């Protein structure tokens, strides 16, 4: 069974440019998460989707970040415009979405460098 797929794996952009990351969760997983991981730290949740509904986006900086999960499968995370401080790893994870507490499975991440 395929794991969580993310693309691109690496992205280098100049500040003020837009950037988008794509995630395809494990087949059959209803819950999708986007995490941000800064160097030397653990991941921090940005947004959680239950099917196509964003049910927890309290940590998402809405002035420049946006996300969508059309049709409740793939998801896209966008930053516009990017700032130097956005350089980090963006991780996508998914879980079945059948229970309140479940194992989360992570993708390989997208490494963003903003110059």
């Amino acid at each position, binding site marked *: 069974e395929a794991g969580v797929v993310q693309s691109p794996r690496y992205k280098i952009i100049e500040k003020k440019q837009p950037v988008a990351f794509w995630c395809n969760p494990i087949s059959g997983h209803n819950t999708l998460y986007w995490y941000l991981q800064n160097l030397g730290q*653990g991941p921090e949740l940005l947004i*959680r989707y239950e099917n196509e509904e964003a049910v927890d986006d309290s940590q998402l900086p809405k002035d420049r970040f946006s996300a969508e999960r059309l049709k409740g499968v793939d998801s896209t995370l966008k930053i516009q415009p990017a700032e130097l401080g956005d350089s980090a790893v963006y991780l996508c994870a998914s879980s079945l979405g059948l229970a309140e507490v479940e*194992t989360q499975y992570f993708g390989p991440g997208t*490494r963003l460098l903003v110059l």
Partner: protein
Amino acid sequence: GIQVEQSPPDLILQEGANSTLRCNFSDSVNNLQWFHQNPWGQLINLFYIPSGTKQNGRLSATTVATERYSLLYISSSQTTDSGVYFCAVSSARQLTFGSGTQLTVLP
């Protein structure tokens, strides 16, 4: 929110040695996972262990929920065990991660 503390922050071992990593958390949780982040950045699930003890090969984990801590044991360490080990907890669906233990296993 829940606070998660991991110790030690860094650990250097000789191949073949055993080690114990600790995770303390500040509140009751019903989800605790241990992850290994390899040098390429992939987070690999090791254990889902909100309570009790589990073993998988050279790795085992114990969570004492009433005392709010979990331990990850690595026996007969190998160079491929190198990387960062994260503990993550939640009382609902949002996982809160600790800052990790950077493990380096020397040949």
